[in-house]
Structures are given as structure tokens and as C-alpha cells.
């Protein structure tokens, strides 16, 4: 006998990158019984890439996601290097990392300024007609302009190296296809100070916001979870490192080379979402769930490798307990710190003499049967794993995409907010938007996560136990 329960549906969730909806199930007394965050699309990259030549993968897989195509491009290229059995040249390695820093800047800027700032600036209960980037441009023109130009700065760097801003083509198996010219390098070096200043101001802004909204910001969908991210010598690493898992109380649970991911990470399937649920195998599902992305990385690492980001991280950690910051809303702060790091790292790379080098490619002596490439995409750890036959035709593809790792946390977070803000059939717009904002905190790239990622009106439907709709609220 199915339990009688009413449901509320939020569909689609807007201002996130992809397709999702939320269903809230109420019990007989009108309290929230369960919530589900569904990812509603499946495209099937793991299936249809079978039979392709592996050398095509760095061009095919970026089409998983137009928000962070560079992450797929690079993770894929790394997996292809492994199939070729080669180590790329220092110049190629640094150029790839440079492009990746451009990606972190543009993607994080988009997430904060274009997608999340409307909620922070106008409040969760503001009119949807103004609560978007256009409203920000109108009422906070300086902030909007800075956000737009910051994203542009990252995108221009990507275009310089890869020919276009979205789905660029720069990395190839065994290296890269172009260097950076001296005059191009100088142009970006010249533009860096303005971006650094902008991000530092924005960090102050988010600090003030979090301070002003103290308790609510701290309570908002907060989870004491484990955290996962790449580190190099304990320092936060975005491009090439070992995978570290840190427990909720700060103890390091595990740290292993990225190519051993399969021994440690599994993915669980639920019938109501096209997005799988990754977990740490030793602990099983759901106990082995963890969080990734900006908050995951800053909690997993010991420190940033660059001076200004490192200084900022100390201030950040003072806001948590015992050095761990579990507050979901503070993800925005972590994200902005990472932009500061990416700009500093960009500067180091641009000043490195290898960056304008001409030694771009290495050739291979023979193919290996498989290759694994792992990178920190803006939204978290991204894993590409290919198996090929003797001529390089792809036999199997396994992708674990950044947003997937946060799937369990997103579901838990939505449930926590729903339980607090929804009682009975009386649902205020602000409550629904808060649930959406949980999702937005994780900045999910749902196009990525289902390699796979409808818009219907936001429909709040109240359904009784017999499946009869007793009330429907449409939002325009």
C-alpha cells in the first residue's frame, strides 16, 4: 500500500546549468515527508562514444557541457595522453593549465554574478521579473559590469589559445596545437590587476552578506559532510594532483593517485533521477557520500599554493568550526577565493618562460589499452576513463562528472529547506526559490552530470493519495 502523500513540484529549476525539477512529498498532516531532486535528461555519451577513435574524444566530450567545456577537453586530453603512453612537455602542460585557469575564472564568474547574485542582492522573496542578471545590470550596474568583464577575461584567454570561447580546440593527445605569443601573454598580464581588484572587492561583498545574514546563511542547507578534491603536496590543486577525501571532523580519510579512482569511488543509481550518486566505496551508499566543488576543495586541502588566496583561506576558516566550514551558503565565498587563486596562478604561468615555448607535442610508440584523466572542473572532480582496442577504437567510456558527486548533498539540502519552509499546501514563492537556491549553491552543471541533462511552467501541484490533483498553482 503506497503511503498517502501530497506532492509539490518545482519544475523547471532555473538559473542553474541544466535540467532539473524538485518534488516535495507531504504527509497527511501537511508536513514534508520526502523531497527528490530529479535530473530529467539523458543523452548517452558513454554509450554513443563506443566505436569512435579515441583521438576524437577531446572534441566530442566538451559537447557534454557548454559551461565548462574546457574541463572535458582537458580531462579527455589527459586520458588520451595515457592511451598514447606519453608524458607531455612542460610547455604543453603549462598551456593546458593556463587555459584551465581561464575556465575557472569565467565559469565561477558566471555562477556568482549571472546566476547566484540576483538571490543575494534582491533577496529570495523578490519579484522574479527583476530577480535575474538583467535586474542586477539595472540596479547594480557596476557590479554587473565587473562580473561580465571578469567572465570575458577568462573567455578571451580560452579563445586566444583554442580559437573560440566555447568548445575550443587546443589540446590534442600528446600535447597542444598552439603556444601563446609574447604579445598575447603581455595583454593578459596587463589585464590581470583589474581582475584581481574586482575579485577582492567581491570577496568583501560576500563576507559582508554572510555576516549580515549570520544565522540564516549558516543554517541554510548546511551539512556536516565529507569533502573530496585534488591536492598536490596537500595544497589545493585544480589541474593535476591526487584525490583526497577529508571527513566531517577534519581528519583525512584517504588520499590516492587519481588513476586509482575506480578502487575507491562507485556510483549508485536511483530510479527517479538520470543523475547517478557517487560514493566512497569503503563506506558504501549513502554513508560514503561527500561533497565536491569549491567548498569541497577548500575543505579537503591544507592550503592554497598562492599567497593572496592562502591569506584569504585563513580568514575563511576562522568562520567555521575547527577549521572546517560546512555552511552550504559559504560555497559562494569559496568559489570567489578560487577565482583569486586562479588569477594568481594565471600570472605565475604567464610569467613562466616555458609558456611561450615551441615544444608542444610528443609522439607515441604504441597504444596502451586504457587511459584515465582527472581534473578539478569548476564544479568539482571530473573523471574521464577510456578503454580502447589495438587500433585506438573506443571500447568503453566511464565518466564521473563534477555535479554528480554532490547529488546526495543537493537532495539532502533541498529536503532540509523544504522541512523548514513548507507546511501544508500553503507554499510561498520564496520557499520554492530557497529550495532552488540550494541547488544553485552547488552550481550544478546538469548538462554535464547526465552527460545527458524541460521546461514546463513552475507548477506546484498538490496531489492526494489517490493521485487526484486537488489544487494547482501556476507561476508566470
Amino acid at each position, binding site marked *: 500500500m503506497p503511503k498517502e502523500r501530497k506532492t509539490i513540484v518545482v519544475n523547471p529549476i532555473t538559473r542553474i546549468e541544466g535540467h532539473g525539477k524538485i518534488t516535495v512529498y507531504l504527509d497527511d498532516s501537511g508536513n514534508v515527508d520526502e523531497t527528490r531532486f530529479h535530473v530529467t535528461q539523458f543523452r548517452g555519451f558513454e*554509450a554513443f562514444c563506443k566505436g569512435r577513435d579515441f583521438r576524437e574524444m577531446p572534441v566530442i566530450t566538451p559537447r557534454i557541457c557548454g559551461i565548462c567545456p574546457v574541463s572535458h577537453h582537458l580531462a579527455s586530453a589527459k586520458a588520451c595522453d595515457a592511451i598514447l603512453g606519453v608524458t607531455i612537455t612542460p610547455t604543453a602542460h603549462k598551456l593546458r593549465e593556463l587555459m584551465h585557469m581561464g575556465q575557472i575564472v569565467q565559469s565561477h564568474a558566471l555562477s556568482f554574478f549571472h546566476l547566484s547574485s540576483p538571490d543575494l542582492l534582491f533577496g529570495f522573496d523578490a519579484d522574479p521579473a527583476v530577480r535575474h542578471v538583467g535586474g542586477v545590470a539595472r540596479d547594480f550596474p557596476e557590479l554587473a*559590469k565587473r562580473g*561580465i568583464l571578469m567572465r570575458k577575461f577568462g573567455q578571451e584567454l580560452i579563445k586566444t589559445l583554442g580559437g573560440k570561447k566555447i568548445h575550443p580546440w587546443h589540446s590534442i593527445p600528446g600535447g597542444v596545437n598552439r603556444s601563446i605569443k609574447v604579445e598575447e601573454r603581455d595583454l593578459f598580464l596587463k589585464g590581470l590587476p583589474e581582475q584581481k581588484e574586482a575579485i577582492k572587492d567581491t570577496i568583501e561583498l560576500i563576507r559582508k552578506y554572510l555576516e549580515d545574514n549570520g544565522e540564516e546563511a549558516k543554517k541554510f542547507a548546511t551539512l556536516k559532510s565529507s569533502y573530496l578534491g585534488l591536492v598536490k603536496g596537500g595544497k589545493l590543486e585544480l589541474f593535476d594532483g591526487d584525490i583526497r577525501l577529508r571527513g566531517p571532523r577534519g581528519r583525512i580519510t584517504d588520499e590516492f593517485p587519481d588513476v586509482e579512482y575506480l578502487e575507491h569511488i562507485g556510483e549508485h543509481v536511483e530510479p527517479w533521477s538520470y543523475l547517478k550518486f557517487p560514493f566512497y566505496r569503503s563506506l558504501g551508499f549513502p554513508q560514503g557520500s561527500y561533497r565536491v566543488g569549491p567548498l569541497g576543495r577548500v575543505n579537503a586541502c591544507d592550503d592554497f599554493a598562492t599567497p593572496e588566496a592562502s591569506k584569504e583561506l585563513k580568514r575563511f576558516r576562522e568562520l567555521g568550526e575547527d577549521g572546517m566550514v560546512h555552511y552550504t551558503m559559504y560555497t559562494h565565498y569559496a568559489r570567489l577565493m578560487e577565482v583569486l587563486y586562479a588569477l594568481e596562478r594565471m600570472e605565475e604561468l604567464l610569467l613562466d618562460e616555458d609558456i611561450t615555448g615551441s615544444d608542444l607535442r610528443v609522439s607515441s610508440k604504441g597504444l596502451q589499452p586504457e587511459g584515465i584523466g582527472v581534473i578539478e572542473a569548476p564544479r568539482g572532480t571530473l573523471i574521464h576513463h577510456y578503454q580502447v582496442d589495438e587500433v585506438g577504437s573506443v571500447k568503453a567510456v566511464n565518466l564521473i562528472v563534477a555535479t554528480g558527486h554532490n547529488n546526495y548533498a543537493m537532495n539532502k539540502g533541498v529536503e532540509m529547506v523544504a522541512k523548514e519552509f513548507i507546511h501544508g499546501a500553503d507554499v510561498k514563492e520564496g520557499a520554492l526559490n530557497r529550495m532552488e537556491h540550494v541547488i544553485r549553491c552547488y552550481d550544478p552543471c546538469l548538462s554535464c552530470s547526465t552527460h545527458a541533462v524541460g521546461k514546463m511552467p513552475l507548477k506546484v501541484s498538490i496531489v492526494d493519495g489517490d493521485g487526484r490533483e486537488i489544487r494547482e498553482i501556476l*507561476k508566470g
Partner: protein
Amino acid sequence: MSKPKVATVWLEACAGCHMSFLDIDERIVDLLDKVELTSCPITDIKEIPKVTVGVISGALGNDEEVHIARDIREKCDILIAWGDCAVMGGINSMRNFMKPEEALEVGYKDTLSTVNPDGVIPGEDLPKLLPMAIPIDDEVKVDVYIPGCPPDADTILYVFQEILEGRIPTVPVDMMRYD
């Protein structure tokens, strides 16, 4: 004269077309002065109202997407197919060489890191896949085609400017791209 209203949706797509729209950068402020952006992935307006311009990025890959395509077609005067997926099916049509069930089996059972002892294939409360991923004009009439993966920001801006001038745009050859 009131501002022309615009609604955009993104169906079976990677979001790259919408990102390319944002790549018009600071010119977006001026554009948002001249048009009224209604339902769109970057706003919270979820109901598509009557609009002058409807934009679809992405192919049709499941039943919900077909429903949305028909909905926006009914509500707009000019429908734009925006990007390779909407125009031709794009990368999604790579799955058309197999049945949807086969693709789901690979994704949820065969993949190396999946732990799925009960063989669960998602489908509960979820849209159903179409046999193939298809271009928009297999289901609805399209007025303007803008290919590209994604189309350049300048091309997108050009199309809007033409519409604002009261013309149905034809994308010039030098703005066409198919990568």
C-alpha cells in the same frame, strides 16, 4: 511602442548556445534595454508568455522536450533554431545508431564505476526518451536557422538586431559556422 518580448528554452543541449548569448558581454546591458527577456534559463519566469521571439537551443530527445517545443511555437511569432543541435540534431544524434534502451543500459549498468546490483534503470517521474534525437523542425515550423556549435555571440546579437529593425534575419554566409 512596447519592447518585443523574448523567450528562450534549452532542450537536448549542453548550454553552450546560452553561454554564447552571454558572451555578447557588456553589450547585453544595451540589448536587455531594448527587449524584454521573459522565460529563459537565466530568469525565474517559468511560464512562457506570448512573445515576439521564441528561441530554442538543443535537439528533441524526450517527450517533455517535444511538449516544450510545441508550447513555445504556439506562443511566439518568430521561432529561432539556435545552434547545431536545434538545427540538425547535433551531437545528440550520435545516439541514433542504437536504441534508447541500449544507451540507458550502458549508462546505468555497464559503466565501470556504477554499482547497481538490482539493475535499476531510471524512469520514474522522468521524461521518456524518443527513439532518436531529432532536429526541432521535425516537430514544429522554424522561421530562422542559426547553425554553429555554438553560434558566435556576434551572430546571435546580429539576429536580435535584425528583428529589432523589423526584419526576419538571414544569417550572412561569413557568420555561418558549423563547428
